[in-house]
């Protein structure tokens, strides 16, 4: 803790060994930690999903007890959301926001490291909860009572406390990011000159600060209902199980946009580079992002159309949900218009971005279908919903992350990745993803319920196709790991600006980016 002894940076080297990572105050190193952590969580939660798909390969019970099936779906959801997608975006925020706005680091480098290191105890609590008596939490990632109150397993408490810790991490991280963006921009970098990724993170950080504390409140109520005799979710004491759903989804819907807005920012960065045109409608992108964020606070009950609400409430939430398609449509239109008559090339990041535009739009449209009240009453808790949110979260969030990793790998490592292998990774991922999830639209509309380990015979073919796709999808991510490791180890040297159409301050520093950058802020014209 010699924090005060060496307070200025004469040396431009960096600490070595384990201390470089555990005690880091460097946004690039912490960003790297976040990205690796999220990738391993992605593989872990993906392996859980393969357990689900193995069980669903055929009707009947093959490998898993129904309780264990429920544990897999629950942990898959929790870890993918809180362990893989969110930390990956924070990793990008760490690495790229200071570089994009010309800041020397985040506003609070020590707190930044704390945000990362809080992920570890949370992940440990979630992962070790598999081995406690009573088994892992099994009521679904949404943890609806009464199941989550009545389940006597200690794993539920461990998961609740893990989410509390993740909440602290997210709130601290978001305050850090929002402060950095508002206060540390280089001279001349006005708000409306900021790269769109920075804008989307500014708004995402606001969503996190507004919604994570509400989740903390809900989790606290759940914990006291479990152990301290309160009756928030127990009608016998005057409470209401549906109350959980309201409070949870008041957090949960902004959370959905927390996982997609930075993805919008990423592809809004990548598409102009490879279309060699400025982003079409920059200002409208900013306003559309803000509109989506504000609307996200008034749509939450569309997750609960079938759980008890007056018709007036259902109608309100149906219309407010449909409104979201307007700003989202603006974005999709702008991406397409950016490509229109562009001088396009199709490197791996661009392939991923185009796929995101196309596949996310499918997910958006199926979301619109789910928003229609009478239809939702049919598709609630079916595989149609599973298909919908995987088109949004995998082909929206996860694939934009992959594209962005390829986009900035040269900046991070100083080497070009293997373009041929990257294209292989893209095509296998995209095809396998669609093989996995497209049939779920059909099984869902035909009435196959989600979160059940067995199913009726008529769904057998589609499920078998889905399971084949899932294993191909899972295994192809090992190729991704290989490509990234290969790129770190060496390859063709990357220029400071390896993409000729790229814009932005991050390309003005050498590749790999030096340990310290922009200690003296650049001036932006």
């Amino acid at each position, binding site marked *: 803790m010699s924090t005060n002894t060496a307070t200025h940076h004469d040396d431009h080297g960096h600490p070595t060994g384990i201390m470089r990572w555990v005690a880091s105050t460097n946004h690039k190193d912490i960003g790297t930690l976040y990205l690796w952590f999220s990738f391993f969580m992605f593989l872990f939660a993906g392996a859980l999903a393969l357990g689900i798909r193995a069980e669903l390969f055929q009707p009947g019970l093959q490998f898993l007890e129904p309780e264990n099936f429920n544990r897999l779906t629950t942990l898959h959801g929790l870890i993918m959301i809180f362990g893989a997608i969110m930390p990956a975006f924070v990793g990008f925020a760490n690495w790229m926001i200071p570089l994009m706005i010309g800041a020397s680091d985040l506003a*609070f480098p020590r707190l930044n490291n*704390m945000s990362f290191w809080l992920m*570890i105890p949370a992940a440990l609590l979630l992962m070790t909860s598999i081995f406690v008596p009573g088994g892992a939490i099994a009521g679904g990632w949404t943890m609806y009572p009464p199941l989550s109150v009545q389940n006597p397993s200690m794993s539920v408490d461990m998961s609740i406390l893990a989410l509390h*810790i993740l909440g602290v991490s997210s709130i601290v991280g978001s305050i850090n990011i929002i402060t950095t963006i508002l206060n540390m921009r280089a001279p001349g970098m006005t708000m409306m000159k900021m790269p769109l990724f920075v804008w989307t993170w500014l708004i995402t950080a606001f969503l996190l600060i507004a919604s994570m*504390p509400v989740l903390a*409140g809900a989790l606290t109520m759940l914990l006291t209902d479990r152990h301290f005799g309160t009756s928030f979710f*127990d009608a016998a004491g005057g409470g*209401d199980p549906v*109350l959980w759903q309201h409070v949870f989804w*008041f957090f949960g819907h902004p959370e959905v946009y927390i996982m997609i807005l930075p993805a919008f920012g990423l592809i809004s960065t990548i598409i102009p580079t490879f279309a060699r045109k400025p982003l079409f409608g920059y200002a409208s992108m900013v306003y559309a992002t803000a509109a989506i964020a504000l609307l996200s606070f008034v749509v939450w009950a569309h997750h609960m159309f079938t759980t008890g609400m007056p018709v007036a409430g259902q109608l309100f939430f149906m219309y407010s949900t449909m409104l979201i398609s307007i700003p989202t449509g603006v974005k999709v239109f702008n991406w397409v218009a950016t490509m229109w008559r562009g001088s396009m090339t199709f490197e791996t990041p661009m392939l991923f971005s185009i796929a995101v535009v196309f596949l996310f739009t499918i997910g958006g449209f199926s979301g619109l279908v789910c928003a229609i009240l009478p239809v939702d009453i049919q598709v609630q808790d079916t595989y149609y919903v599973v298909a919908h949110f995987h088109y949004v979260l995998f082909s929206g969030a996860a694939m934009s992350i992959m594209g962005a990793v390829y986009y900035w790998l040269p900046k991070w490592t100083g080497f070009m990745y293997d373009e041929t292998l990257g294209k292989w990774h893209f095509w296998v991922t995209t095809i396998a993803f669609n093989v996995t999830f497209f049939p779920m639209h059909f099984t869902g509309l035909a009435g196959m319920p989600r979160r059940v380990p067995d199913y009726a015979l008529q769904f057998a073919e589609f499920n078998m196709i889905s399971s084949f796709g899932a294993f191909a999808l899972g295994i192809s991510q090992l190729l991704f790991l290989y490509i990234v490791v290969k790129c770190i180890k060496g390859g063709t040297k990357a220029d400071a600006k390896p993409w000729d159409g790229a814009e932005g301050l991050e390309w003005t520093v050498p590749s790999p980016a030096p340990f310290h950058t922009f200690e003296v802020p650049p001036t932006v014209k």
Partner: protein
Amino acid sequence: MSPNTNNYYVPSPSLWPLIASIALFLMAGGFAMQMNDIASGNFVLIAGVLVFFYLLYGWFRDVVKESLSGFYNKQVDVSFRWSMGWFIFSEVMFFAGFFGALFYIRNISLNWISQSTLAWPGYSSWTEFTSTWPTNGPAATQALEAMSPWGLPAINTLILLVSGATLTYAHWGLMKNNRKQLTVGLILTIALGAIFLYLQAHEYAEAAFTMDSGIYGSTFYLLTGFHGLHVTMGTIMLAIVLFRVLKGHFDSHNHFAFEAVAWYWHFVDVVWLFLFIFVYWL
């Protein structure tokens, strides 16, 4: 060593974040064990709390030293202001969740329970349930004796409002470089905070209901309890500011630690007003 304040201050590597991570791991793990009657849980929990206090002491000591050594330039100061504001906003949302739950229960779900026509075995009393507030629910066997607002709660409201004034008095003292006024104002504020906490504890001890007295007990104790926790933290923070004042820290230009605590204290005050109106009174 004269710090270079042209550039934004980036601290050197620090182990405090890792220690924070260890503290929270021990606290969360110990608490989970303790709630599930695993004997060693208490020890783990206590160990976590001890590490946590060591962390708070050490990290804040470093920050105070950096501040006194002049490492924080104007831009860093602005960062502190933004971040404290957003932190308080996150606290607002935390309480908003509980208030939202209270309003939902009182205005929506209790009406639904009272309209219930369930006549299943074991639920016969539910058909006679009428929606009133306060209530301890349709399955309750005992009448509920709610907290009256016009005893201790009204006194506590007065105490907190006065404490906001004494804190402003202290701030004026700081701005005018009147250290005596600053010290007296701070001591008064801390004393009022402590009296508030004492009276709140007394109110809990005398209350005719507990956390398991249905939804009234649940909302009452969690809302007032979290508020009390925030007053406790605010009082400790004020005590640290007083300690620093006595050591001669702060001047009329450079005292954001004082201001941040003052913002926090006023926020806690406003939460109490909402509590008084919606939990105790209406």
